C-alpha cells in the first residue's frame, strides 16, 4: 500500500519537467559544495601535517639547540631534505638568529622568524613553531612545504566531476522524455474514452435511424392490417354462409400473423444490446425481412431474391444483420429516385475469407452509382451524398461495423450511371438450432392430448388463462402455476405427462432453470418453453428444449407440444 503511494508520488514527480531539472541542478550544486568542503578539509589536513612535522623537529632539536650541537642539528635537517614536499626548513636561536637550515627552491629562508600558525602564501604553506624545554625558550623552527597546485587538485576531481555532470544531464533528459510520454499517454487515454463514448453513441444513433426508416412503413402497415382485421370482423357479422365466414376468419388471421411478424422485427430493433451473435440460416431470415423491406422501400422499388436453399448458415447478431441489410437496401432505393429493382443474391464461397469458408451476400441496384471518391469514403461515419435532412451518413458505416464485428468484410463496387453493388462476405457459422418445430403436422406428432396431465407455468394471468384454455380444448388436464418456483413445488406432489412453461418470469428460478431441473429428474419428460424474446429462445434452443415463439397459434402449440410428447413417448 505504502509502496504504491510512493510509486504514485514518484511518477507524479517525474512527470513534471521542472522537477527533474531541479533534481539535476541539486545534484550538481551538492557535488560542488561537497567538493569545496573536501578541498578545505584537504588543505586543513596539509596545514596540520606541516605543523606537527615542525613540532616533531622542534622536539628532537631541543637538546642540540640548547647545547649548540650544530652537527646533530644538521643531521636532523638533512633527514628532512629527503622529503620532497618540504621546500625549506630553518632552525633559529632563542634570540631569533639563524642557526642552520636549507631552502631547496623558491624564496630563501627568512633572516628572523616569529612563531605563527600555518599560513598559505601562493602554493606554499609556512609555519614557525617555538622550541622549548620546560620553561626554557630555546629557539624556533621554520618549515615551508609545497601544496599541490589547484589545477592539479582539480584534475583529480575531473573524472568524478564528468560522471556527476553526465548523471545530471541524464536525469534531466529522462525526466523531460518521461514527462512528454506521460502527457502523451494521458491524452491518448482521454481520447480512447472519448472515442468509446462516441462509438456507443454512434451505434445507438444508427439503430435510431434504421428505426426511423422503419417507423413510417410499419405504422402504415399496421394501420392496414388493423383495417383488414376490423373490417373482416365487421363483415363476419353480416356473413350469410359458413363458407364466407371461414373466408373472412382466414383473412383476419392472416392480418394478425403479419402484425405478429412485424412486432417481432421491431422488438429485435429496439433491443439495445451490443453484439449477440447466433447462427442463422440466411434464406429463412431474409424471408422474414421481405415484408419489412417492401414497406420500407416504397412502391416504386421491387426486390428480387436469389438465395440458394443449400446456403451455409452464418453467425451474426441478428438485429445488426437486419439493420445492415435494411441500410443497404434504403441506400439502393435512394439511388433510384425513379424506381427500379434491387437484387439480393447470396452464394457459398469456399475459402474466400482468409482461407475460411464464407457466405457472400450481394445487394445490387440499378441506380445512379457513385464516383470513385465517394466509394472510397462511403464507409466513413457521417459521410453522405444525400441532401441535408435526408440522410445522416451513418448507414454504411453501420454496415461496415457490423461486417467487422461478425469477422467478415464489406466492399462496394460502383461506377457513375452503372449502379452499385454492396457485397458482404460473412464467415460460415455453425449449424442452426431448430427454433421452431414444423407446425405442418409431420408423422410423429401427437394431436390428441386426451387424458394427458400438463403443467402450465405462466406468470401473465391473461396468457395463463388463454393457453390453459387452449390445452383444455385439446383434451388435456391442466395444472396451473404462476411462477417457476410454484411449478417446481406443484411437481413435488403430483405427476404430470408434460410441461409447458414461460421462460422469463419473476422468482428465484426462471423457465429455463425449471426445465433444466426437471430434465435432471425425469429425462423423458416432454418440456416446451414459450417466449417472445429471441435471445431467450436462442439459449433454450441451444440446450435442446423445443421453443414456442410468442405469439403463437393453436396449430403451432399442437405442432410443438405434439412433437415433444410423441418424442417423449417414443
Amino acid at each position, binding site marked *: 500500500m505504502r509502496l504504491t503511494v510512493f510509486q504514485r508520488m514518484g511518477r507524479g514527480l517525474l512527470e513534471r519537467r521542472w522537477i527533474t531539472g531541479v533534481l539535476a541542478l541539486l545534484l550538481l550544486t551538492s557535488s560542488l559544495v561537497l567538493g569545496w568542503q573536501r578541498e578545505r578539509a584537504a588543505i586543513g589536513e596539509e596545514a596540520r601535517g606541516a605543523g606537527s612535522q615542525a613540532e616533531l623537529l622542534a622536539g628532537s632539536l631541543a637538546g*642540540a639547540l640548547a647545547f*649548540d650541537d650544530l652537527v646533530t642539528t644538521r643531521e636532523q635537517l638533512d633527514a628532512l631534505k629527503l622529503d620532497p614536499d618540504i621546500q625549506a626548513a630553518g632552525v633559529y636561536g632563542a634570540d631569533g638568529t639563524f642557526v642552520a637550515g636549507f631552502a631547496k627552491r623558491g624564496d630563501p629562508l627568512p633572516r628572523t622568524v616569529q612563531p605563527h600558525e600555518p599560513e598559505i602564501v601562493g602554493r606554499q604553506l609556512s609555519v614557525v613553531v617555538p622550541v622549548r624545554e620546560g620553561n626554557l625558550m630555546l629557539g624556533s623552527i621554520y618549515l615551508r612545504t609545497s601544496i599541490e597546485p589547484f589545477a592539479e587538485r582539480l584534475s583529480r576531481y575531473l573524472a568524478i566531476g564528468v560522471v556527476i555532470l553526465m548523471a545530471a544531464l541524464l536525469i534531466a533528459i529522462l525526466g523531460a522524455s518521461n514527462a512528454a510520454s506521460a502527457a502523451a499517454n494521458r491524452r491518448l487515454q482521454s481520447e480512447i474514452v472519448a472515442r468509446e463514448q462516441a462509438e456507443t453513441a454512434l451505434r445507438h444513433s444508427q439503430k435510431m435511424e434504421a428505426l426511423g426508416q422503419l417507423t413510417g412503413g410499419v405504422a402504415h402497415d399496421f394501420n392496414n392490417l388493423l383495417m383488414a382485421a376490423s373490417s373482416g370482423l365487421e363483415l363476419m357479422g353480416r356473413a350469410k354462409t359458413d363458407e364466407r365466414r371461414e373466408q373472412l376468419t382466414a383473412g383476419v388471421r392472416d392480418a394478425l400473423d403479419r402484425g405478429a411478424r412485424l412486432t417481432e422485427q421491431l422488438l429485435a430493433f429496439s433491443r439495445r444490446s451490443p453484439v449477440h451473435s447466433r447462427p442463422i440460416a440466411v434464406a429463412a431470415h431474409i424471408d422474414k425481412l421481405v415484408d419489412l423491406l417492401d414497406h420500407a422501400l416504397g412502391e416504386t422499388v421491387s426486390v428480387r431474391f436469389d438465395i440458394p436453399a443449400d446456403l451455409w448458415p452464418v453467425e451474426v447478431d441478428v438485429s445488426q444483420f437486419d439493420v445492415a441489410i435494411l441500410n443497404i437496401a434504403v441506400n439502393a432505393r435512394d439511388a433510384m429516385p425513379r424506381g427500379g429493382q434491387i437484387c439480393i443474391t447470396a452464394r457459398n464461397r469456399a475459402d474466400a475469407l482468409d482461407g475460411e469458408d464464407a457466405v457472400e451476400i450481394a445487394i445490387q441496384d440499378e441506380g445512379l452509382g457513385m464516383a470513385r471518391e465517394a466509394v472510397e469514403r462511403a464507409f466513413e461515419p457521417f459521410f453522405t451524398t444525400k441532401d441535408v435532412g435526408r440522410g445522416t451518413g451513418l448507414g454504411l458505416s453501420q454496415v461496415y461495423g457490423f461486417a467487422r464485428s461478425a469477422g467478415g468484410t464489406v466492399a462496394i463496387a460502383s461506377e457513375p450511371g452503372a449502379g452499385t453493388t454492396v457485397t458482404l462476405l460473412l464467415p460460415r457459422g455453425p449449424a442452426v438450432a431448430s427454433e421452431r418445430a414444423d407446425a405442418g403436422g409431420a408423422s410423429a406428432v401427437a394431436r390428441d392430448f386426451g387424458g394427458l396431465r400438463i403443467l402450465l407455468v405462466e406468470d401473465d394471468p391473461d396468457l395463463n388463462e388463454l393457453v390453459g384454455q387452449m390445452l383444455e380444448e385439446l383434451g388435456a388436464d391442466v395444472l396451473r402455476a404462476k411462477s417457476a418456483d410454484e411449478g417446481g413445488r406443484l411437481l413435488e406432489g403430483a405427476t404430470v405427462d408434460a410441461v409447458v412453461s414461460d421462460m422469463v418470469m419473476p422468482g428465484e428460478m426462471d423457465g429455463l432453470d425449471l426445465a433444466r431441473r426437471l430434465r435432471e429428474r425425469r429425462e423423458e419428460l416432454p418440456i416446451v418453453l414459450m417466449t417472445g424474446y429471441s435471445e431467450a429462445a436462442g439459449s433454450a434452443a441451444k440446450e435442446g428444449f423445443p421453443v414456442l415463439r410468442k405469439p403463437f397459434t393453436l396449430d403451432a402449440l399442437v405442432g410443438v407440444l405434439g412433437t415433444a410428447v410423441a418424442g417423449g413417448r417414443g
Partner: protein
Amino acid sequence: MSRRPAPRLRAAFAVAVLLLAGVHPPLAAQSAGEGSIKAAYLIKLASFVRWPADAGGDTFRICVSGRADIARVLGRAVGEQRVEGRRVALVQLGAGNPQQARTCQILFLGSGGEPARSLLDASRGAPVLTVTDGDNGTRGGAVEFVIRDGRVRFTIDRSEAESRQLELSSKLLDVALAVEP
C-alpha cells in the same frame, strides 16, 4: 658520508686562526668565552633533568665551587631565571662547609684538588646533579664538560645520576659526546 666535513673544516679553520693568534685554543674557541658558555649550560641543564619531588623546596640552588668567573656570570643571570616555577639562587661553595653541598640541586666543581673531592663526597647520595670540568681536572660528575674541536661539549655518567635519583632527558643524552652506562 659527506655530512660532517663542513663543520669539521670550519672548526679546523677556527683552531688554525687561534693558533696563529697565539691564544690557548680550548679557552678561546667560542666567541662568548668558555666560562660564560658553561654558565649558560648550567642553567639550561636544569630543563633536561628531573629531580625527586621533595628536593630543594621553593628555591632552586646552583652551587659553584672553584670558578669565580662562572659564579659571577651566573650571579648576573639567575635573577631572571625560573626552573619549574622556582626562584634560582646562586651559592658559592668553599671548602669550609662541605655538608652545604647536599642542599644544592646543581653542584659545579670548577677546579680540582681536595676541596672539590670533599664536596663531592659530602653530597654523595643526595639528589644533586654534579657537574665536573674535565679540562680543569675535576672528574666523576654526572655531567662532565670537555672541550672538543674548540667547543664546549659534555659526557654523561648515567649511574652517577641514577644513584642520586635523577632522571636525565633523552634529548640530553642525544647531544652528549659519550654516555657511560
